[in-house]
């Protein structure tokens, strides 16, 4: 048994390497180094893809050294933060609510490293939550969805019921009711972010329940979600989908009416610039429609699906949100407020 141990070890190492590329060499020449952790694949054309594009932007426009790791489990979060901090990375993005605890732990150990946590919940001296008010965009999407729906039944398919995801649904529902107070809004969580077939079945179940306009908040699983809508349309029934997190209008242009978009790349770039200039405060970074970070973007390929008067109402609501006259429902999860 023991003589075979090297084989097993080699294979285990190979497996570990395949999913965790080691951080690159550090900036002995003084080049600022920025790292990104995502808990899912960046090929999701959504939440993680946006972060990866932001990292690329930082590398291309600012000339920083960049590195990305996909980490699955909380134990890997800690390990990755520490290995990047040890390797001299000065700014580390943890792209998701799930990174908060590991970042708080690593931040105490490495006070000179700045940790920026997307949808984070606990700011401290060197931990900066970056909160996107995506709910403002999903509210506008809800208004559009209510106008597009013939049946008055709408559906939402989510990954895991974390506050940042739940908040986008609460606002979507409020947007729907602003246009159609009698609408029925269904909600399903599939328990993870990547299970394409589960997302498809969850969407299919809502469609069978009479829903004809759906929005998602999953990652790579959205490909199955769009497929469910597509199949219903091929069956001769009108149905539409909304994209989320990133401009997904070109991901499934045949079924998407519009997307609730976060400009994650621009926000990452802005954050990295502030960090380099030393002006990154130790307070929560909020960004919504007013900051130009978030918006609802209709799909140009489906021009005319959203009626003009509703588009005008959406524009008015957007102005009211910017002016502060309309406060969109949200779920607060930043502690100490």
């Amino acid at each position, binding site marked *: 048994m023991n003589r075979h141990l090297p084989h097993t070890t080699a294979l285990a190492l190979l*497996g570990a390497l*395949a*999913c965790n590329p080691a951080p690159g060499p550090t900036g002995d020449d003084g080049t600022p180094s920025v790292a990104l952790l995502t808990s899912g694949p960046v090929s999701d054309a959504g939440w993680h893809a946006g972060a990866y594009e932001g990292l690329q932007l930082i590398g291309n426009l600012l000339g920083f050294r960049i590195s990305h790791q*996909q980490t699955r489990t909380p134990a890997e979060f800690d390990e990755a933060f520490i290995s990047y901090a040890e390797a001299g990375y000065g700014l580390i993005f943890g792209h998701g609510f799930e990174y908060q605890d590991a970042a708080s732990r690593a931040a105490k150990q490495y006070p000179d490293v700045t940790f920026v946590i997307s949808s984070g919940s606990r700011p401290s001296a060197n931990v900066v939550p970056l909160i996107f008010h995506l709910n403002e965009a999903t509210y506008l999407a809800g208004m559009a969805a209510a106008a597009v729906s013939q049946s008055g039944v709408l559906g939402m398919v989510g990954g895991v019921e974390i506050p940042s995801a739940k908040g986008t649904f609460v606002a979507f529902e409020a947007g729907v009711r602003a246009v159609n107070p009698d609408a029925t809004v269904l909600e399903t969580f599939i*328990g993870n972010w*990547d299970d*394409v*077939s589960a997302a498809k079945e969850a969407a299919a*179940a809502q469609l069978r329940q009479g829903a004809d306009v759906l929005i998602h908040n999953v990652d790579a699983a959205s490909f199955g979600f*769009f497929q469910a809508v597509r199949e219903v349309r091929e069956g001769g029934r009108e149905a539409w989908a909304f994209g989320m997190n990133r401009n997904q209008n070109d991901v499934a242009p045949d079924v998407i009416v519009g997307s609730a978009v976060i400009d994650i790349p621009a926000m990452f770039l802005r954050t990295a610039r502030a960090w380099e200039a030393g002006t990154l405060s130790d307070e929560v970074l909020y960004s919504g429609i007013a900051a130009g970070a978030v918006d609802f973007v209709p799909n140009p390929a489906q021009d005319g699906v959203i009626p003009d008067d509703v588009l005008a109402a959406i524009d008015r609501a957007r102005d009211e949100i910017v002016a502060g006259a309309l406060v969109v429902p949200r779920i607060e999860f930043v502690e100490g407020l």
Partner: protein
Amino acid sequence: MTDLAALSSFVVAAVGLAVPLGLAALGETVSQRSGVINIGLEGSVIWGALGGALGALAVGPYWGLATGVLAGGLAALVFAGFAVRLGTDQIITGTAVTIGSLGFTGAVFQSRFGATGLALELQTVPAWEVPLLSRIPLLGPAFFDQAVTAYLAYAMVPLLGWFLFRTRWGLALRAAGESPEAAHAAGVPVVRTRMLAAVFGGAMAGLAGAHLSLVHTGTFAENMSAGKGFIAIAVVVLGRWRPWGVFAAALFFGGAEALQFTLQALDADLPYPLFLALPYVLSLAALAGWFGRSRAPEGLALPWPR
């Protein structure tokens, strides 16, 4: 929506979700009966999904099913090469194969289609409606209006039952799993038998993966196996290592998953993780012997020669 229509849509979803689990679990049953527990099954599923997608893009959806089988079988061959031929620890080797496969398939996908992804639109394998049988109320449309992968899964149940319990080869395979020493003494080539059984299991898991990408969703995403390989191992336990039991257990797991979607869509105010956990609780109960005698093959996970 009427109650009957709701029930019927639930049964359709349950069978749809059960088919990939059943395919992978039936393969794993043969593997475990020969004494090999392949935790790397998840790796075979994701390779099957990607291999199927690439094959379908290159030649067509039916060929995609074949390339999926091949890709899943190859992943299991890597596993079996280490775990059976070299006698490395089956659990550790299988885990390494799974983790490595999830990483490598992602790397291949990203290098082929770009890092930030695109929703592949794959031509799917069409469903074949079986005349008459598909008219059976409630069950007909669910079981007999499916793609070829589902019919393969149904056919495998009696076929594997016959093979495992009515043929000499099946007896030799089970002997390799129960007592490799005795099997060896009786002239059974234990290592070769176990290699073949493990590769067959991987090929079936590859077919399950190809079903996910080419029948069920018509697309590929990284990690889309989403633990189905692991669930299939639980299905084998719940099905007590018998093809009929395993098939029934796969239907049960598919039903549990479909139930939670249906109930959530019906606005039932119940915490959704409860439904996700139910099948695993029952698997534990099955392991504990609450559903009658239940015993894993005696030589399961033990290397041969020692």
